[in-house]
């Protein structure tokens, strides 16, 4: 499948979803009209002396109204899902555009600030569904010895927790994404016997998405998203987080390359 075909297929799917929502909307209006007018007429009939056929028709009207409400809910769900897709893609588009302008020198801000303020914090606000849910984003890079992690950038972690983060790579679930170079998803980390809660963490971890940060054929580190709720990430959120991981990979790669360049020139 070519890129053009893929784009066409995504566009067709989007168009069909909207068209379906609209078709449901029109059906809903017609059904409402029939239902409400029939119910009014039959109500009068029953009030003035109900008969078996009248009651049967009244029940049929109620069924029609129930069907209309179901269709309305379905249309609402379609549009709500589309709005979330648009929100996620809007953020990824803004982040990519800004990265290009930072690299070109149009926007004068350091890449670490861009990663935390421009990507991690808004994404955390978007991903957190429930008031009680605690979502945390982190980027882990191996220390110079290559055996332990440090956490240069995060959102949702305490300043102390971030500064003191010093886990052995082999003891963390993040090792899988780092070693394999492939994204990993644990909907419920509790079922993995290898998982150990971080004693320093302020909130428990229940779901984990761990993505490798790649620069060419090298894995620089991992991008982790954890939630205090199990099964917290739906497929749309998975796609969104994966897209952000790709943007972060480029940003971290450029930043580390710049640091090496500066260290070499000193």
């Amino acid at each position, binding site marked *: 499948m070519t890129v053009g075909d893929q784009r066409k297929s995504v566009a067709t799917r*989007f*168009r*069909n979803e*909207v*068209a*379906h*929502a*609209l*078709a449901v909307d*029109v059906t809903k209006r017609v059904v409402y009209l029939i239902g409400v007018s029939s119910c009014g007429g039959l109500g009068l009939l029953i009030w003035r002396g109900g008969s078996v056929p009248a009651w049967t028709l009244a029940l049929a009207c109620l069924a029609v109204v129930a069907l209309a409400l179901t269709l309305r809910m379905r249309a609402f769900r379609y*549009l709500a899902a*589309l*709005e*979330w897709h*648009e*929100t996620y893609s*809007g*953020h990824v588009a*803004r*982040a990519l*555009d*800004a990265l290009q302008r930072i690299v070109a020198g149009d*926007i004068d*801000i350091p890449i670490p*600030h*861009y990663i935390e*303020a*421009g990507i991690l*914090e*808004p994404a*955390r*606000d*978007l991903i957190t569904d429930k008031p009680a849910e605690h979502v945390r984003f982190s980027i882990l890079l191996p220390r110079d010895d290559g055996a332990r992690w440090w956490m240069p950038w995060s959102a949702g972690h305490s300043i102390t927790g971030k500064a003191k983060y010093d886990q052995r790579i082999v003891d963390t679930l993040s090792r899988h994404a780092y070693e394999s170079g492939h994204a990993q998803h644990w909907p419920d980390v509790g079922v993995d016997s290898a998982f150990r809660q971080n004693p320093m963490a302020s909130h428990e971890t229940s779901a984990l998405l761990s993505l490798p940060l790649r620069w060419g054929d090298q894995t620089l580190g991992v991008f982790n998203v954890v939630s205090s709720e199990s099964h917290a990430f739906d497929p749309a959120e998975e796609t969104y987080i994966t897209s952000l991981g790709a943007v972060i990979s480029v940003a971290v790669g450029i930043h580390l390359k710049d640091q090496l360049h500066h260290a070499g020139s000193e």
Partner: protein
Amino acid sequence: MGTPSPIPQEKSSREYERLLKGQIDSKQYVKSLREDARARVARVAKQRPIAT
């Protein structure tokens, strides 16, 4: 061939620059992002013909 017209800049695009400069917080930016997405979906829903 129709006359091309520039895609209008959305509010969230300007808000993103303000977010990077530290002039607003991420919650305000997320709010404008959601508003733009809602308006875009409403626009598409009005423009697309109903599939038969």
